[in-house]
């Protein structure tokens, strides 16, 4: 097997798109990293790691509708900041049990899902973000988080089912696409 080199920004159009992304989100992703890390130097490192991730996966990033880019970039920035915390062994063991909030009166289904995710144990939430948003493989996630690949697969399945089951309990159903 031969090494395959990264496909990165090739055209001037790509470079212009990247510049637009950078100018729109540079301060925001730094602010998120600073919020997570509480240290400006480390937040700068996390910011640079975020841009590296975005360039590394440019084929996916460049295909995003502009309306999704902020959420995507913020998610990547948060996870890069958490990587730094993990490398410094400053992560706290998050509780595995979950006490989901009840749906509030007049709360739309989608908003309820967002509030469920915010209350989800971080270990599940992070794995779901890396899988569903950053589209990493189970192997990449395992390597990044220091888990076994089987653990990653189980967390993805459990996290997803926890959310889906809770929504279905409130009366929402989903068609397979």
């Amino acid at each position, binding site marked *: *097997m031969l090494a395959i080199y990264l496909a990165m920004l090739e055209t001037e159009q790509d470079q212009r798109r990247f510049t637009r992304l950078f100018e729109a989100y540079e301060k925001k992703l730094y602010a998120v990293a600073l919020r997570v890390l509480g240290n400006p130097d480390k937040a700068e490192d996390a910011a*640079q790691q975020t841009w590296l991730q975005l360039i590394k996966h440019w084929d996916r990033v460049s295909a995003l509708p502009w309306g999704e880019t*902020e959420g*995507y970039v*913020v998610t990547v920035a948060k996870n890069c900041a958490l990587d730094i915390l993990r490398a410094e062994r400053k992560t706290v063991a998050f509780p595995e049990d979950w006490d989901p909030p009840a749906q509030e009166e007049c709360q739309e289904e989608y908003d309820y899902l967002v509030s469920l995710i915010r209350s989800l144990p971080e270990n599940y939430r992070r794995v779901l973000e890396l899988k569903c948003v950053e589209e990493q493989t189970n192997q990449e996630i395992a390597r990044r988080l220091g888990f076994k690949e089987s653990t990653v697969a189980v967390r993805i399945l459990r996290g997803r089912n926890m959310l889906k089951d809770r929504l279905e309990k409130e009366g929402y159903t989903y068609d397979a696409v």
Partner: protein
Amino acid sequence: MTQFDILLRRALMDANLAQYDRALRSAETKEPEFSPGYLRERTRVLADPQAWARRRFGGRKRLNWRLIAIVAALLLLSACGYALVTGQFAQWFPTIWMDPEAPEASEEIVSRMGTVIGEPQTVGDETMTLNAAVWDGQDLKLSLTAEVPDLPEDFDSQAPFYDLECRLIMAEHQREAYLRKEIAQIHANSHIDSTEEELEELVQSHLEYPDDPDFHSVVRAARQEDGTLILQVMAALFDYVEDPELTLHIENFATYKVEEGDDGIFTSSRAPDGTVTTDHEINEPFLKGPFDFTFTLDKKLSPISYAGDIDATYENIPLRVSKITVMAFQVCANVDLLALYDPSGEDPDKLHISLEQNLAMSLNGLWTKDGEYVECIGGTAFSFEHDGKTDGEMRGNPVHVIDPAQVTAVCIGGKRVELSELTRLDE
């Protein structure tokens, strides 16, 4: 993807936007006080994100992977004793495609751009000899032979190599001149307007980085029948300075550990302080070194460029050829697209070139003075959009080394383009 998964993906992102809403809102009004180091990196990433990321990833050149496969296969064939010719340069450079019907002619062409070095070095129980260098004014190839006592029995020349700690370094007194010309050329090709101050700032920031200029060198190796290793180093070296003086540093040359289900993408990076990080484990280096070979290139076979305006068509895609550059190992045509172009493919009144078409657009072949048609393979094309126009490059690698002065025409999309109808630029 199910309906729920689509919803979940969006909700995961929105959950983060909600969680960090206060930080995001304050970022809109508050100016962060970035450090000087961050601001320097910022200049670099905005000027050339690809080069910046490449540097952070370890300076991997985006080489044509099909050529790398061919190089590895040729190395293996040579190591197994299937040498096509017996000339000295042919023996040192099994990765250079010689004409099997005229091996002496190919040897003569290569010798005109070859510098014989023949310098041996010993470190511990490893001995390495830098045999020679071959340079066509754009691509540099180096040949080395190594005696390595502990080479694993199952050493595989097709394995993914870790060569981050092997690099080519230009002499300090030539770095600045080289970088200035390189940056000027990149900006001239990019159609991006930059002020003189911005370009100067870019030059100074590159000078601060000891690994610049980055020649994107790649090292490959194969075991020979006598148990020694033959190595080939390939690098992108332009003729921006006369008689470039270079040092080849080889250290900790190894292979990556490959695991089942691996995605085949191996990345490694070296931080400015020299710290190396990789995303895959590395096997024990089979060549530890360190070796440092310093040499000067005083021979090259310069490219010949031609300019003009010739219309051609590639699979119904109308093009105008504005420049053709002929090198010993590659032919390149600069082309303009003669149609309104929509990269997204959404506008039915505009041309859309699919990624597959883009990748397939290459120079098909060339003709020489003696009437020979030489097929070209493994080319790539790039398109650049600016000011409503689209231009790009088509490339092809001849199946054997050529003398640029002997080329009379190239084949683009099946059409013969005569170089005599263009203006030779060095005359």
